[in-house]
């Protein structure tokens, strides 16, 4: 079965600093990978997704992620964090057996300090 691991429960970065959130997956074939963001009181919003092709994926709000098959990773990055980026971030893998229902990691909570 597919699984997703987000090793960092909490991360704190200074505003303007770079950000990398880690995601590791366990899946037999090429996975369908997603990053979602959940802000307080807001629904889950898709940041970016990867299916095939170029392993560096660009998303909204200046985020990007890189798929590395050899490391089973799909880490999310942003060159310069803004205070408004403080939120919960979820990595997910799509399951082909359930209409591609998403299997989420436990999430990483991002705190941005002045």
């Amino acid at each position, binding site marked *: 079965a597919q699984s997703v691991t987000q090793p960092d429960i909490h991360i704190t970065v200074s505003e303007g600093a770079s950000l990398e959130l880690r995601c590791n997956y366990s899946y037999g074939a090429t996975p369908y990978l997603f990053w*979602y963001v959940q802000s307080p009181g807001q629904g889950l919003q898709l940041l970016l997704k990867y299916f095939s092709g170029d392993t560096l994926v660009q998303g909204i709000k200046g985020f990007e992620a890189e798929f590395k098959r050899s490391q089973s990773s799909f880490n999310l990055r942003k060159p310069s964090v803004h205070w408004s980026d403080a939120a919960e971030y979820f990595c997910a893998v799509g399951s082909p057996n359930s*209409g591609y229902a998403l299997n989420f990691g436990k999430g990483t909570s991002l705190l941005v300090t002045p």
Partner: protein
Amino acid sequence: GAGVSQTPSNKVTEKGKYVELRCDPISGHTALYWYRQSLGQGPEFLIYFQGTGAADDSGLPNDRFFAVRPEGSVSTLKIQRTERGDSAVYLCASSLMGGPQETQYFGPGTRLLVL
């Protein structure tokens, strides 16, 4: 256009009671998903509808949980004999056809508290 909506936004009930949670997907989306998010966890898949039928209900925790989508649009998640452990945020999502490259659009969720 309108996104996915869920009602009620909050529901407080007593242990043993019956509750219904409603999801209105994006118009024209044939695929509908229910997830449950417990405190400090990521959402967990409950059930997937393709049109009117439940194509995969493998995520439902037990037979107290049931969901319907009689006309292929609105869906209702039903929980019988609620238990305190059912307290969570219940999320609904929809996508156009349930394909692998599609984006799932999530509603704001219903926060259920069982006392």
